[in-house]
């Protein structure tokens, strides 16, 4: 049974308690709606920063939830990067990089609203009580009743079982392990102790999963912020290079 998530008493108004949110979209909507931001014109840099700040306390989250928030962080960073580069002036209408995110946010918001309507219906229904007491009648032993099942049904069940066993497990999805940011920062530091610069792709390649890619991007950004490294990219979709922060600068 799932317990109702009660928002704990607010401490710092700027501190976001992740446990309160049902997922990254919920958190994102909270940030946007709380600041009266036009959802069709999201200041992506600001929101990304706030989102990253909110998930910094993530070590406490369970693996699965952390992955979900990290995926969203990666999406935000990607959109932010796309927004930074000037659009091509070839006359074509390019889609706003935020469009897909806005569509998801609105869709999610609608279902959250639908959930609220359901909750209201549930509350109203719970005010009506059915008859609580049911007379105890000796149940008729099942074996005394005629059985209506025919062989065709057993056969169908066997065939269905066959079909199911022949298939790969449905709905199975690989969820990456939580990759620690510190681990990636260590990796970058090691790489830079041997060379002046290292390509982002080279750091990610050995693992190949999205989770590692995201964690590495986050590690880069974090280290850049601390002036421990510098990041360079010659153009959109060009390789990202991580440089040792020049000594004495």
């Amino acid at each position, binding site marked *: *049974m*799932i*317990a*109702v*998530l009660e928002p704990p008493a607010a401490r710092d108004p700027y501190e976001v308690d992740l446990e309160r949110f*049902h*997922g*990254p*979209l*919920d958190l994102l909507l909270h940030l946007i709606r709380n600041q009266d931001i036009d959802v069709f014109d999201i200041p992506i840099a600001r929101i990304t920063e706030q989102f990253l700040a909110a998930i910094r306390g993530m070590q406490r989250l369970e693996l*699965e*939830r952390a992955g*979900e928030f990290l*995926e*969203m962080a990666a999406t935000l960073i990607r959109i932010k990067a796309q927004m930074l580069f000037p659009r091509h002036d070839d006359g074509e209408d390019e889609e706003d990089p935020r469009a897909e995110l806005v569509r*998801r946010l*609105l*869709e*999610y918001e*609608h*279902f*959250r*609203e*639908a*959930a*609220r*309507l*359901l*909750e*209201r*219906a*549930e*509350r*109203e*229904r*719970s*005010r*009506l*009580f*059915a*008859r*609580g007491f*049911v*007379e105890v009648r000796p149940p008729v032993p099942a074996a005394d009743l005629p059985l209506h099942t025919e062989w065709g049904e057993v056969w169908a069940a066997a065939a*269905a079982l066959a079909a199911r066993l022949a*298939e*790969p*497990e*449905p*709905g*199975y*999805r690989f*969820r990456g392990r939580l990759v620690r940011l510190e681990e990636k920062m260590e990796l970058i530091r090691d790489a830079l102790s041997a060379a002046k610069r290292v390509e982002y792709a080279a750091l990610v390649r050995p693992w190949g999963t999205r989770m590692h890619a995201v964690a590495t991007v986050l590690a880069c950004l974090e280290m850049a912020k601390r002036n421990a490294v510098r990041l360079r990219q010659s153009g959109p979709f060009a390789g990202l290079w991580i440089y040792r922060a020049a000594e004495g600068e």
Partner: protein
Amino acid sequence: MVEALLFASQSPLSAADLARAEEGLDEERVEEAVAELRAEYEREQRAFGVFEVAGGWQLLTRPEYAPVLERFDTVPSATRLSAPALETLAIVAYRQPVGRAEIEEIRGVGAGGVLKTLQERGLVEVVGRGEGLGRPLLYGTTPFFLQHFGFRFLDDLPRSEELPVVLAQRDRDTTEQEAKAHAP
């Protein structure tokens, strides 16, 4: 007879259910009897009434008694759903039949555990299999879902104007056909 059945039943009974009880009873006469009962209970100011739920009728106490009944320990109270469960249920209810991947895409979080809880509580069930990779299971709501929320039919689901175009667009008929086509 109709009254005895409604009284003794734990769940809503449809006109067809009630008509089965006695020879010479048909659905039309059942409906008449129910309407009469309803009027009588109202006239006599009974503490309970006939409510339409999940395509049938059920005797339930009137809402004004809720405050006392909620506090009374011999009265079983319904457990409410958590917010994530409600969110997932809303997606299943408005989008059915719907696969787990789509639910996860909309909510941005894993749905396996919540779906299992909803199935265990009898609110959601597998209604078929989708097309595509792995023929994913498709979920829909159960008759008990209607009962739990006090809806008569699926079409009773609240629809606010804010509810998205994506929901309205979805043609109930096509999705129902799909469900049938995919049912095992």
